[in-house]
Structure formats: structure tokens, C-alpha cells
């Protein structure tokens, strides 16, 4: 029996005024999948992520969440199911980590709620713990390092108990150790049944951690493949999309690493 995907789109079209940015995209993502969206600049990755998350309205096509048509889902209900984080969430807010994470519970709370309920407190603690920032809970957001703030924001996203987490280039301001830790954290979350869709620039990072990569170019999906059964097909397709040769290298864990062939004289 085929399980119902947590998110599915059919013939999705997104654009600005006269310009089509995402052109007839079909996509299904299941619970527990870790998906990377890759593509050169202006290929439409971020726009697609915003369309899928409901941040922006779709211009044509079908979009459904767990089999339910998106237009039938209220904004608050959608907010509970889908968590989205932009590339650089603000860090200059006058909030502690705990206060920030509590804000994430908004879709569940009445407008008249002034104090936090026991459920809210429990969920906030759980989210903070799940990303390992317990020791930072009472610190102001502005005092954290880039990697710590990123984790606080992920706790903010998780406290809604979403079915899907969508992140737009979450690693772009992190150094390599934080990048690795973040990808491991996302992998763990997938283990708990969360579907994760992440826009990445770093092909090597995507192929090393994700289950599936989707290559976008000029608003169309050019490649969509599972990388768990070998990365060769992905490598060829992505080399073509990025117009640059990609090479594979052996890694210490016995898996294969991917790197751009920076000095290839033929490119």
C-alpha cells in the first residue's frame, strides 16, 4: 500500500508578474524523508520552497498536505503542519531563547492567552532539548553564536510539532563544524518521522547527508533521485545542471564524497 505523501504538488506554477519562476513542478515528499533542493542561483529553489510552505500563494497547479488540498486548510492549521525558516532569521530580537521558542506555539494558542499553559511549557522544553540548547534557554537571542542561534530557531520551528520542516539555506552562515552538526540534527529529526526539505548551495553537504536530491534549473526539476543507492546518477545530473564537473572522492567512513572539480581545464 502506498502511503500518502505529507506534501505533494502537481503542475505547480509560481511567478512574479509576467515572469514564470517555477514551471510545472511535480513533487511528492513522504514522512521521514530528508530532501535537498539544489540548483544554480536564480534556478527557483527559494521560490519553490516558499510556494510549498504556503509562505506565498501558488499561481497555478495543485498543492496538497497529507492528501488535503491546500486551499481547504486554514492558515493556522497549515502553520501547525508546516514549519519554514528563511535564510537568515532575525537575531536582533529582544527575546530569550525560551521566549522565542514559546512564540512558535502561537498557532495553538488563543489570542487572549497571556500566560503560558502547562502544555506550552512542556512542548517548549521538549523542543529546546531536542536541538540541545537547554543551557542557552535563558540567554538573549542576540548573545548567541550563528550556530547556536540557528538551533534556537530550529527549536522555534519544531515546537509547533510540524510534519514538514523547510529550511532555506540554513548552513550559509555557519562554519563547517556547525554545518555538519546541523545536518546530523536534521537527520535525527527525520528519524522521528519529520519530513525535511532543505535548500542548499553545498552539493557535497547535500550528497553526504540527504536521502534524496532534487536538481532545479530555470524553474524546472531536472533531476530527482535517491542518493542512498549510489550517487553516480546524481553526480552526472548535477554536473550538467551546474555546468561544472563534479568528482567523487573516498571518505573515512567508507562512503563517497563529492567535490567540484575546480581546476578542470575543460570547464
Amino acid at each position, binding site marked *: 500500500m502506498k502511503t500518502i505523501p505529507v506534501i505533494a504538488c502537481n503542475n505547480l506554477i509560481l511567478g512574479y508578474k509576467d515572469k514564470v519562476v517555477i514551471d510545472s513542478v511535480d513533487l511528492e515528499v513522504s514522512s521521514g524523508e530528508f530532501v535537498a533542493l539544489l540548483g544554480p542561483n536564480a534556478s527557483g529553489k527559494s521560490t519553490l520552497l*516558499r510556494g510549498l510552505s504556503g509562505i506565498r500563494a501558488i499561481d497555478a497547479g495543485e498543492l496538497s498536505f497529507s492528501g488535503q488540498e491546500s486551499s481547504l486548510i486554514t*492558515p493556522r492549521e*497549515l502553520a501547525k503542519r*508546516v514549519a519554514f525558516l*528563511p535564510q537568515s*532569521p532575525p537575531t536582533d*530580537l529582544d*527575546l530569550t531563547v525560551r521566549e522565542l521558542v514559546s512564540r512558535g506555539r502561537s498557532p495553538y*494558542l488563543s*489570542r487572549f492567552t497571556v500566560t503560558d499553559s502547562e502544555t506550552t511549557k512542556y512542548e517548549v522544553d521538549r523542543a529546546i532539548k531536542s536541538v540541545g540548547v537547554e543551557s542557552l534557554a535563558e540567554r538573549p537571542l542576540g548573545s548567541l553564536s550563528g550556530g547556536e542561534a540557528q538551533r534556537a530557531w530550529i527549536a522555534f520551528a519544531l515546537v509547533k510539532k510540524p510534519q514538514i520542516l523547510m529550511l532555506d539555506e540554513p548552513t550559509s552562515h555557519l562554519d563547517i563544524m556547525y554545518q555538519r552538526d546541523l545536518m546530523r540534527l536534521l537527520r535525527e529529526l527525520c528519524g522521528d518521522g519529520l519530513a525535511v526539505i532543505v535548500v542548499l548551495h553545498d552539493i557535497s553537504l547535500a550528497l553526504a547527508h540527504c536521502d534524496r536530491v532534487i536538481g532545479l534549473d530555470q524553474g524546472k526539476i531536472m533531476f530527482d533521485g535517491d542518493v542512498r543507492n549510489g550517487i553516480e546518477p546524481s553526480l552526472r545530473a548535477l554536473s550538467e545542471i551546474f555546468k561544472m564537473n563534479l568528482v567523487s572522492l573516498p571518505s573515512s567512513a567508507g562512503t563517497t564524497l563529492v567535490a567540484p572539480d575546480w581546476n578542470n581545464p575543460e570547464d
Partner: protein
Amino acid sequence: MQIVKSTVVRSFLLLVLMALLAFLFSLQFGTSYFGPIEVINGLIFSDSGIDRTIIWEIRFPRSLSAALVGAGLGLAGAMLQVTTRNPLADPAILGISALAGLALALVVVIFPLANSYVRGMACIAGGVAGGGLILILSRGFVSPLRITIVGVAVGAFASACIIGLITGSRVVLDLALGFLAGGLYGSGWEDAFWWIVFLPLMCIGIISLANRLDNLALGDEIAINLGENPDRTRAAAVLFSGLMTGIAVSISGLVSFVGLASPHIARAIVGRGSLNLFTGSILVGSIIMLVADTVARVVISPSELPAGILTAFVGAPILIYLVRSKLS
């Protein structure tokens, strides 16, 4: 967390106490002075003669009106500052007060016999329309700079129209000076009765908007992902600020700087979060107006100054200080 909460509660208690004291002083001081006991007698016993007339018929409704003007302007200023993310936003600077005033001047010219409630409704309509106009002209409050420039332009235009109407019409001339300078001269029970409209509106506005505006502070995309509709929330907040401004202008004319200064002072006292800021700004605005009105009555007694002149005297240096501290 507990410590933080009790500090906030203490700050609010302090503000409430100060507001009550300011209210009491405003009943005591004027052309003639009354002790606290005399004030209480005047409020309670209807047979206390001339004291009763001065306290119950003149000062008490006037103080209620002053507190209402301060509360309305403080709340409008706080909401505009949060909504536009602009620390210099204020109903006067954004031209909303001037549009409310223009609506009033038009009604007085066209229908010279209109009573104070019709005038009040005109001001409210003008304030709400002013909010809507700024919203449309600044294309949805995305750029704080654009909002300020649009607001200043709209305000200047409306002020020019008001002056034009005043100079062209004898009827308006009577109202003009007190109205332009802003003050509570002659405010009585018919102004104080606006509390009946204002209080429930204020509660509804704060409760339905504070939480939404806090979510908007996280950025539009994140707010949408919390189930918010940023454009609609901003529009509601600005129109609501226009409504508050309209009520205040109908009572006091063009009082400046209360809307600007109250939120900054409130923020320093009651700390973070829109709910605290809005409630704090209401209290601070009331205190400022009560003190300004009391001083205005006393300083050149038996004559009096328009309270708006005093708020401008104190407010202008605050504005300059704010601009300087933002630049440095």
C-alpha cells in the same frame, strides 16, 4: 522568569499609582486650590456648594478628558511605532492627527451647528481615513523611511487645508487657536463621555492586535508561517491607531509629542512585548496629559496656556534626543 514578571507587575503598579496621583493633583490645582479631603467631598457629596460645581462639573470631567486624550495618543503612538518598526512614528508626525483635524474643520465649516458628537464622529472618520491614506500611499508599510516621508507630506497638506479653512471662515476662527495649539480648555462631561466608546474599543484593539504584532516582529515570512496575515494585521493596527487619534483630536485638537514620547517612556519602564508596551503607553500618555493640563492651568493663572504648547516644549527635546541617540 518569576523575578521578571514581578518586576513588570511592580512597574505597572507604579504607573497606575502615578496616574491616580496625577489625576488627584489635576482636581486639586487650578485657579483655586482644594485639599485632598475637599476634592473627595466635592466628588461624593452633591450638596457641597461651589466646591461641588468646580470639582464635579468642571475639573473632574476635564481631567477624565485629559486622561482620555493622553491614553488615546499614547496607544496610537505605540501601535504605530510597533507596526511601522519606526521609533519616530506618532499620529502627529504621520499626519493622522492633521487629517482628523481637517475632517473636523470641514464639518464645522459646512455644518456650523453640528454638535460635539457629530464633530467627534468627523474626527474619528478623519483619523481612520488618515491611517488608510498613509497605508495606501506608503504601499503597505514596508519601508519606515517612506512612511515617514508620506506622513510628513500628508500632514503638511492637511495642516495647510486647515489653515486655509480657518482664514476663509469666521465660524472656525473661534475654535482655531485652541484647536491648533491643542488643549483641553472648556472640556466637560460631553468629552469625558467618550470613555464609554473608548474603553471597550481600546481593550478589543489591544487584545486582538498585541499578539499578532509580536509575531510580525519576527519578520513577515515567519509570521505567515505562524498563521498570521501581516498585511491585514498592519492595516488593522493603523486604522485602529487612526480611530484612537480621531477620538483624542476631537477632544483636544492637535496635541503633539504625547504619541511619540509615551511609548519610549513606557518601554523603559515596563519592558518588552506589545501587550506591556500598549498598556504602559496608555498610562504614561494619561499621566503626561494630566500633568500638562494641570500645569497649563496653573502657570499663568487665572488665565491658561494650551496644554499642547507644554507637551511640545517637553516633547521637542525628547524627539531631538531620540534622533541623536539613533544616529549615534
